[in-house]
């Protein structure tokens, strides 16, 4: 099962974190920091695997991929295939690419909930849900359609007005 999905930029700032087991905030931050510490010391052109038993506890593996300014990191246990996970990162990124047309870090920062819904279409509860990026796109589009169909009130103003009324 997949334990965590992390997207960290090259400065070590987390851009997307999703843990499929409950961890306290402090623990999560600690893990992110230590993972980044190891990652940034690795050279280009080396394998995409790391042994992270010391960080995530026994029986854990980590694969990562480096795209432009972002590291995409999947942490999982021995019941998953490493290369398949690497492919999954590729699918994730391809989907993002289709979604945002040439995805970049800013897209991820500003479309936070969209990113979450895409991830939820790919992985659910630590298991692979869908691997075809076309299918994923279809699901995501559907979501955004129903979002706009309820024609509304985007969330931000609502919250703001909520504040005012208090």
């Amino acid at each position, binding site marked *: 099962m997949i334990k965590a999905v992390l997207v960290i930029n090259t400065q070590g700032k987390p851009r997307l974190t999703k843990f499929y087991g409950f961890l306290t905030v402090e623990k*999560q931050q600690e893990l992110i920091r230590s993972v980044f510490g190891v990652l940034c010391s690795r050279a280009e052109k*080396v*394998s995409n695997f790391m*042994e992270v038993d010391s960080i995530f506890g*026994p029986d854990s593996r980590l694969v990562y991929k480096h795209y432009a300014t972002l590291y995409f990191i999947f942490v999982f246990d021995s019941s998953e295939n490493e*290369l398949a996970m690497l492919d999954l990162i590729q699918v994730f990124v391809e989907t993002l690419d289709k979604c945002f047309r040439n995805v970049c870090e800013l897209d991820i920062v500003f479309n936070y909930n969209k990113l979450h819904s895409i991830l939820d279409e790919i992985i659910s*509860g630590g298991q*692979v849900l869908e691997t*075809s990026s076309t299918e994923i796109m279809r699901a995501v589009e559907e979501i955004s359609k129903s979002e706009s169909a309820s024609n509304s009130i985007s969330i931000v103003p609502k919250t703001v007005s909520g504040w005012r009324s208090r």
Partner: protein
Amino acid sequence: MLYIFMLGYDVDFGHMEAVSLISAPKYPEKQVGYIVTSSLLNENHDFLRLAINTVRNDIIGRNETFQCLALTMVGNIGGREFAESLAPDVQKLLISSSCRPLVRKKAALCLLRLFRKNPDVVNVDGWSDRMAQLLDERDLGVLTSSMSLLVALVSNNHEAYWSCLPKCVKTLERLARNQDIPQEYTYYGIPSPWLQVKTMRALQYFPTVEDPNTRRSLFEVLQRILMGTDVVKNVNKNNASHAVLFEALALVMHLDAENEMMSQCVALLGKFIAVREPNIRYLGLENMTRMLMVTDVHDIIKRHQAQIITSLKDPDISIRRRALDLLYGMCDVSNAKDIVEELLQYLSTADFAMREELSLKAAILAEKFAPDLSWYVDVILQLIDKAGDFVSDDIWFRVVQFVTNNEDLQPYAAAKAREYLDKPAIHETMVKVSAYLLGEYSHLLARRPGCSPKEIFSAIHEKLPTVSTTTIPILLSTYAKILMHTQPPDPELQKHVWAIFSKYESCIDVEIQQRAIEYFALSSKGAALMDILAEMPKFPERQSALIKKAEVAEVDTAEQSAIKLRAQQHMTNALVVTDQHSLNGTPQSVGQLSLVKIPSISGDEHTSADQELSQANGTLATVDPQPPSADLLGDLLGPLAIEGLPGAAVLSEPNAVSGLEGVPIPADDAAAIVPVEKDTNSVQPIGNINERFYALCLKDSGVLYEDPNIQIGIKAEWRTQHGRLVLFLGNKNTFPLLSVQALILPPVHLKIELSLVPETIPPRAQVQCPLEVMNLHPSRDVAVLDFSYKCGTSMANVKLRLPAVLNKFLQPITVSAEEFFPKWRSLSGPPLKLQEVVRGVRSLSLIDMANIFTSFQLTVCQGLDPNPNNLIASTTFYSETIRPMLCLIRIETDPTDRTQLRITVASGDPTLTFELMEFIKEQLVGFPTAPRPPAPPAAPVAQPTNPAALTDPGDLLAGLL
């Protein structure tokens, strides 16, 4: 909020709002609600309970997007409660034909999560058929999810899902052979690699494939995968195809296919570890390591040894580690020499993160597969030379052990050590080893050039300024040994060494100081030095600590337990080499014990700590820095004690005793001392037995009995009605005590079990005898230990009361006024409440009396009694037959006449009340100066024999030293 959370700030607000958004009717609000909830809250959060109903409504509702949201959320954070209330609905969704695939695949994973949280939700009997149906699914999304679900179910209980196995194989065929899938599911030209991988994973959870047809078609597919994969340019395609390939390899290994297929696999792996693509190289190495454990493919793998060794130089540390693991795994007698030498060479260039592991592994391999021992010594010395910082102490201890146990090796090792000493800069560990080896065995080299004692001494002494305080003691020992081996004595060398000793006599480090002083004193003894500083005895053969360490370090996954198994097999082989020496190892333990004895009684913790140490030493193979020194001291003290004790103390003592013969020894047979031979040989106790007994009634450890030959210490732990006593029988003499016997004469109310007491106690050793006590019912009777031993020709016998007395089974308890008075009133009159006026009590102030009570585990309750001259105490009594019983005590004193008081005792048990009353009377009347002997074992009042003269052999020794 999520963003704040992700950046690492604690978000403890807004949870309620998020949860309530879930029930909002509009999609965006609902979506935000679900996403925030599933990220922020954990499965046991209270708020989630509020949401269950809404979630359920969404799941059974008609709106599919809402269903999806709800399923995703439950799939991510659903807990037990969710499992209980939602599982049936989710199952229904999964198998319903009216739902779209989008919903059903989510339902599958949601069910998986619920199943993980609560395995009972999936009814095994009915579900396996449905599972089989699900595997016929055409939509690959649903199929992938279902396969994940199947993997979880099968890993839990494969029996029930046999019917799914052929389906899995069929799916695999469909994907790999027929390539019969929709376009969007091919990933870089490969039909859904994930599904293939998952399917093969699922197959690995079944122990075997029995049906021949299924088996045949499965192997056909596997063969196709194995053969049809090639390394291509496109990275992504490569990854995908190899993901499938490696999974196929794993499956082949699992099914343990015919040898042909296996060798095919190895050939493939051999190809992989040479490719440019680092990922594949990594996995190739890893899988080879795994393969080593599964089958006997050693020889084929060995062909790739050169390639693997090149991988050690890979720029990627992950790959280097894998290569190291593989080398470690594939090493055996035939290739050990090459591999270890390769590792040694690599050591000087390896990065720091790996060096420790590397040196440990090299040492283990060298030890396990050494073709001859001199090679082993070479390897370890090189290892220390190259990576001294990373060589743990265990490694050099082990070398020393080997050398000590193998006489042939000694000159060689000493010569080697000498060579290394000539190097300009050597590591401190090397100084330690060389010094030790040269100290012990340099005399074997005496005739070689450059190896005269003086030269060796100066070579070692050169290093002294550079080493730390842990090494100096070793050097000092070496000097002493060199001095001893120099025959005829060389006055100049002697002077030099003495100067060093006297310099360190005031060293701040105790260990160094002690050694310096002792060696100085000893070396001035001349010829006697020879006996004292004799060669180290052989070490008892033990399991290598290194191998142990490696075993512990290994993670306990299935594959690695296989490594362990192999390692253990090898280890037994390795041990055979030196097995014949194991018999010689016994004297050492005695040597250690003799040291343990010195601190005598008061050092109970001391002894146990030392004992632990020697135990640890028994299991570990290392020569801890402690034991050698202990041994040395043992060696040192042995002869001295022989000189001292028999000459001065023991011989003079019979006279002293005979002078005291006239001390009245009561004639009744409960006498503490029953002299067997009524001549001067009878032994007299040191100290007052009664006083010791009464002291022990109040505390839990101390000396029960002591005479010139033996000392019996006691240490007790009491818990409710159970007690555990340990008797420490310490032989104070330098000759063994024979026919030691200890019998317990328990009173009826105590159940006492004494473990076996050894018949002989070795000289200056201490033996522990645990003793289990259980209290059956209240009584003041005391257990008696009948102890006898033979010392020389005389037989000694003592009867000692054991301090397992009533108050040991009491536990203090504080009672408030609200509890006390109703209880006090409810226990009205005899036999539950007894009152007595006692006269002739020692006059005690109230505070003293309170202190006595506290020491007997009675809690004095302040302020319960309005009269300040009265005292109220409470306690709980534990025994096997009656439940824990609250006891209440009231003492009324007369301020004008302190010798008179009225005692009232109340408890729920008549015997207890009576016994407690009598007990308190005894304590108050007799305590503590003139103990009125309790009824059964009337112990005599023995006069203490002049304690100043021979209290402690330790003192005696100190005086002599």
